[in-house]
């Protein structure tokens, strides 16, 4: 493996990832995750005042047994390095503690709600990445054309709209028409097969998330395309006598795709925000709605677990992007 890292001449496409590159990226992702763990631990414990009082449901006049319970859950009273060590040890065995609101292990609650979120956000994301890129490439290539002006203007407007606001408006419109269910993932009274029922419940939330993500992705793709527009290699391609759309597809697009890929993955944090608020509006039983419910308490162990899950998800996706990058771009290799 290591010989690959030092071998490969300039024209050899990397078939295997250099081990050093993989290790470096994995270590960086691990450090980011560790930073999240540290934030997660200290924010909830080392703030001024008595955290137990701040988090207890009735504020300052909470009953003493409940306060004692919260202090035990947070491990207050022990020196902080012992608390942190205990926290790390639990984390290593995926023990995120017990939820205050639901009296069940946080890991199990999050596990149950995980797939609905992946289904909803994933569908919206895949649709949006495809449509957004298609739009962005065309808009950027014909800078200032009618398509460009219309799609950019619509994209900036959508980009300026909170996802949940769009959801709320569509929910009012559609509930007036009675075409789509007003929330949830399944209807127990429905006679439809489960897959169709879920798809029917998903339609409006996917449209809402999809529209906002399309806006984001088409703007990213458009600006990458604008950067490539006057590159010398495109003049060469044109001089060879290629037709305009051949130049676009074979030469400009592959190069514009590279900076966009990084930005697509960096924007996943933005996808998480959309999931939290839109799931709330449509009562979609995923991690987002769980976050909203955990805030009511506040259910601190559950919130901590959710923050960790969302962050770990985004960090993992970014790592995957980093590892795929050398395959997409043969220029990025060792360094």
């Amino acid at each position, binding site marked *: 493996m290591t010989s690959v890292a030092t071998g490969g001449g300039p024209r050899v496409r990397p078939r295997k990832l250099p081990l050093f590159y993989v290790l470096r990226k994995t270590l960086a992702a691990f450090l*980011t995750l560790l930073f999240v763990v540290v934030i997660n631990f200290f924010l909830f414990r080392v703030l*001024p005042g008595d955290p137990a009082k701040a988090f207890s449901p009735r504020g300052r006049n909470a009953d003493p047994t409940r306060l004692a319970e919260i202090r035990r859950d947070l491990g207050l009273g022990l020196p902080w390095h012992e608390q942190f060590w205990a926290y790390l040890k639990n984390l290593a065995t995926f023990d995120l503690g017990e939820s205050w609101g639901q009296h069940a292990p946080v890991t199990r609650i999050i596990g149950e709600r995980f797939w609905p979120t992946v289904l909803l956000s994933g569908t919206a994301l895949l649709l949006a990445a495809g449509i957004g890129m298609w739009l962005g490439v065309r808009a950027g290539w014909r800078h200032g054309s009618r398509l460009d002006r219309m799609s950019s203007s619509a994209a900036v407007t959508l980009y300026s709209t909170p996802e949940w606001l769009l959801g709320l408006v569509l929910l009012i419109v559609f509930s007036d028409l009675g075409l789509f269910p007003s929330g949830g993932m399944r209807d127990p009274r429905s006679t439809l097969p489960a897959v169709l029922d879920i798809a029917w419940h998903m339609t409006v939330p996917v449209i809402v998330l999809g529209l906002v993500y399309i806006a984001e992705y088409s703007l990213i793709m458009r600006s990458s395309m604008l950067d490539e527009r006057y590159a010398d290699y495109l003049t060469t391609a044109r001089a060879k006598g290629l037709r305009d759309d051949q130049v676009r597809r074979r030469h400009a697009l592959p190069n514009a795709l590279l900076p966009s890929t990084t930005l697509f993955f960096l924007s996943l944090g933005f996808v998480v925000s959309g999931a939290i608020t839109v799931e709330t509006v449509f009562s979609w039983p995923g991690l987002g709605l769980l976050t909203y419910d955990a805030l009511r308490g506040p259910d601190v162990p559950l*919130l901590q677990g959710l*923050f960790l899950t969302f962050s770990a998800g985004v960090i993992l996706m*970014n790592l995957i992007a980093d590892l795929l990058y050398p395959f997409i771009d043969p220029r990025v290799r060792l360094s």
Partner: protein
Amino acid sequence: MTATTPVVRGRPQTARSIARARRRAALAAFWRGYRADREGMIGLIVLVLFAVVALAAPVLADADGLSVTKATGPVLASPSLSYPFGTDDAGRSVLTLVIWGSQISLLVGLAATFISMVIGTLVGIASGHFRGLGGGLLGRLTEWFLVIPFLPLAIVLATVFPPDVPKIIAVIIVIGVTSWSGTARLIRAQTMSIEERPYLERARALGGGHWHQMSRHVLPNVMPLVLANTTLTVSIAILAETTLSFLGLGDPLRISWGKILDDAYSGAVISTRSWWWVLFPGLAVVLVVRAFNMCGRAMERILDPRLRERA
């Protein structure tokens, strides 16, 4: 450059007066470019209108209209001549709420942006200037904050914020502390390219310290970029305020656009189909955020030579 520097009559030209004149000329050139940008001017006009509404709120609408107990209107009335934006479930005029809400929404947006820009600029310049451990650590910190999803972090921060701090200040700090990383990355890259230029080598050779280099040479050169980025950050901050309010993490005692929308959502706006209760505050948010975006994009176009068009 020296050819365009106006001669200050009667006074000897100091380095400072030359620099000031040059900056004034650059600002005038920027304004000429900005005035020619249609999108930017439309955005600016919309923003000025909203600023006037926010400042003139006491004149435009009676503050009593914000109180649930003093409200006089009918409950959930659709828009009419006496209530152009309709009323909410307590009989308050939505128009009054939107007018007063603009104060809090704009205030939170601007104040949070200020915090975000200060942190982002400081971290960006320092991480670009200092090579070695300190700069590397700051660069890492920026990357960490870029990757960590914004809303979950803001939720966690807002939850653990000391309860004795007024909620509105807590919201401002939470948004400011979570939204600086994009700015820092931008400023860092710009600082690194400025550091390569000869005048910084000259400053170093003449014995200028780190502070002198950063404040006198790097900062003035990244400033235009900071300003363009500020307008884009304001739009993010206003969106963040609305979203946090919607999740119930805002200030429950002060009316902001997000608070109106949250009230509408929890007040059965869907079952009663009182669309006006969502539409008008929603439009206000979208208009202001879009206007800030338009101004920011226009400024970027003028400042970024790559976008300045060969066409």
